[in-house]
């Protein structure tokens, strides 16, 4: 895998998150390039999900700047003036630039277009697979229904917008192999399909950045390989950049273009997968043992 050096889409600078006396994330800096898959890895409790929650607005970062840019990269020039202005973001015809740490969670999704999945799957279990995907398209549909008023009267453009939403849902269901389960309740799907549905639902929000929290957890090797294919397919379309937390090293090494390693809330390595996996600090953080032991485990995992 070669890292593709596109323009930056997300810039995390000096991100710090404290819970009382505990420093979960300490002065973290990294970047996500457009059209790349960036993996965030680290041992349990390293602060990976905390980073996710800060980026997606579920936590308010104690300190730091989280800037997300879409469209024309020249907008990055406006970053400092935006930071000083105290506003949430700049919206220009050519693109947008948002400071995520200033936005509540739903606006991060709605305006900055950051979609996420959850470590423990959060689907609308009592609603059908299709309905899950329609809920994800809430904001454009809400606008088309004239904030419910036009929709209640059955006036345009809502019917057309709903058809378009169904088409988009059908497209992603087809892509994720869920089309024949479209009318089943989401809670009845097998585990692997639920994981895929959650990603499909996130894709229905037309994200700029897709944050996947352990998408391969609980999947068997075959399902995991299928998921890799899907993620690569989404990446190769170019519109979506991905940030993923993963424990499954085969997934990380196979699909990511860039890897960031966290340990106790501190970044210990940052680079292409090949460089990271040979980094002694990373091996130490994961295994925490003497060199010959490392060599043995390395031999086991086929290094």
């Amino acid at each position, binding site marked *: 895998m070669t890292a593709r050096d596109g323009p930056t889409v997300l810039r995390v600078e000096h991100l710090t998150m404290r819970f009382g006396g505990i420093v979960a994330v300490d002065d973290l800096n990294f970047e996500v390039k457009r059209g790349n898959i960036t993996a965030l890895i680290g041992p349990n409790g390293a602060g990976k999900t905390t980073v996710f929650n800060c980026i*997606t607005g*579920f936590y308010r970062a104690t300190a730091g700047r989280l800037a997300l840019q879409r469209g024309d990269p020249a907008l990055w020039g406006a970053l400092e003036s935006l930071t000083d202005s105290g506003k949430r973001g700049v919206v220009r015809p050519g693109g947008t630039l948002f400071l995520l740490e200033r936005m509540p*969670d*739903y*606006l*991060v*999704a*709605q*305006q900055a277009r950051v*979609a*996420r999945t*959850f470590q423990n799957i*959060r*689907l*609308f*279990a*009592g*609603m*059908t697979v*299709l*309905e899950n995907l*329609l*809920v*994800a*398209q*809430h*904001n454009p*549909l*809400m606008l088309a*229904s004239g904030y*419910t008023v036009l*929709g*209640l009267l059955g006036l345009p453009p*809502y019917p057309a917008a*709903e058809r378009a939403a*169904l088409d988009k849902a*059908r497209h992603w269901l087809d892509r994720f192999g869920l*089309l024949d389960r*479209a*009318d*089943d*309740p989401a*809670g*009845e799907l097998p585990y692997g399909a639920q994981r895929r549905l959650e990603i499909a*639902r*996130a894709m229905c*929000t037309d994200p700029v950045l897709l944050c996947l929290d352990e998408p391969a957890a609980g999947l068997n090797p075959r399902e995991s390989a299928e998921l890799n294919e899907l993620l690569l397919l989404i990446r190769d379309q170019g519109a979506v950049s991905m940030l993923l937390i993963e424990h499954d090293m085969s997934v990380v090494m196979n699909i990511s273009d860039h890897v960031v390693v966290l340990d106790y809330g501190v970044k210990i390595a940052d680079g292409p997968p090949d460089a990271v996996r040979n980094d002694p600090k990373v091996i130490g953080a994961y295994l925490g043992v003497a060199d010959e032991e490392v060599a043995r485990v390395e031999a086991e995992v086929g290094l």
Partner: protein
Amino acid sequence: MAGADAMPANAYRTGAHLFGAMRDAAITGLISLGLFLPLVGFQTITDIHNVLILTTRWPLLLGLVGSITGCRCIYLIALAPRLERGALRPPQRTQALLGNLLRNWFIPFAVAFVIVYPMLVVLAVGFTGAVRWIDNFGVQILIYVMLGWGLNIVVGLAGLLDLGYVAFYAVGAYSYALLAKAFGLSFWILLPLAGVLASFWGILLGFPVLRLRGDYLAIVTLAFGEIIRLILINWVALTNGYAGITGIPRPTLFGIPFNAEDNGFAAVFGLEFSPIYRVIFLYYVILTLAVITCYFNVRLRRLPIGRAWEALREDEIACRSLGINTTNTKLTAFAMGAMFAGFAGSFFAARQGFISPESFTFLESATILSIVVLGGMGSQIGVAIAAVVMIGGTEIMRQLDFLKQIFGPTFDPTQYRMLLFGLAMVAIMRWRPRGLIATRVPSAFLKTRKTISVDLVTEGRG
């Protein structure tokens, strides 16, 4: 020995089963004896010298305990094995059959019946008797159907447990009563205004409780309901306190009042005056209002806002991750639910001509909520059926005068209302814990609309 061996194995099992059943029944009898001894066995009465005398009622006690033991015994021996066998069979077929029956046959029939109900009653019992039947059954039940459908938005769809729903009903009723008396505005102008005012109060309540969930939300809404009632009692200058407001103007048909005067409805149409016209008119007004509520419910469910409500009930965090403003979504649910309560309230005031805080107690909230819960949260038909059973049941008990001939003149059947409600609740909890209609119909589908078993649907914890 050989004989015993030859005996079929299940005969032995039946013997053990019989013994077990007897023992179980005996224990049940003992428990009921312990329970009823102080409750039924002893009775204190005051004699003419105002002295308390302790009497005993052994025959009644023995009869009660005996019948409980007997019933338990019969249940265990004859009914329980059959029920167990029934439970082993997959229930899907009966469920689907019931659903089809409801959709294809019951609903058109029910709609037709509701439309022609006043005519049927008039034909059956004549002009004078019909007033009571249309008013007590038709209008009264439809008010609760409407309230149930309104609360269904908040509890059934958005999953926000609201124990103070009657507050909005009260706001609607008092808005109409006060504005109509103060400014002489007509019912048709004040009806939407009462809805708007009630939904304003809904938003007002919504703001502070947005961060609360489940039990906490229920407690605060309960308190809100009581606050509104206490304000109505204590702000005597405005609301006239306990005495209530009398002489509330009645609704008119395009300006034609329903009274005995020369410009009244009967005189204008050359009919003999009878109160029945007004009652029939009111019936169709509340029927229209209920139909509008139902239409809103059905339409809203298929619009993004309705899906967002249901998604909110399922998982609030996932909603936020998809860019849904949960604050606004909850507030619209509160406002929309309150609006329909406001409509119903102003209709109630116009129909009664008199309102007082007595009509807006917690018991009303509880009744409306139990209609929604019994009907099956989120189900339109279920709620309507539950309202008919609960409110119609109460009214029927008021009509059972013949029971006085059996149980003596002091017997008042309505006194047993709560007991019967309790029994109904226990029965529902036992056999249909998620309400009468325990399926959810998806709001959109690609190929087939499959109903979703309610076991998967979140109950809504706020």
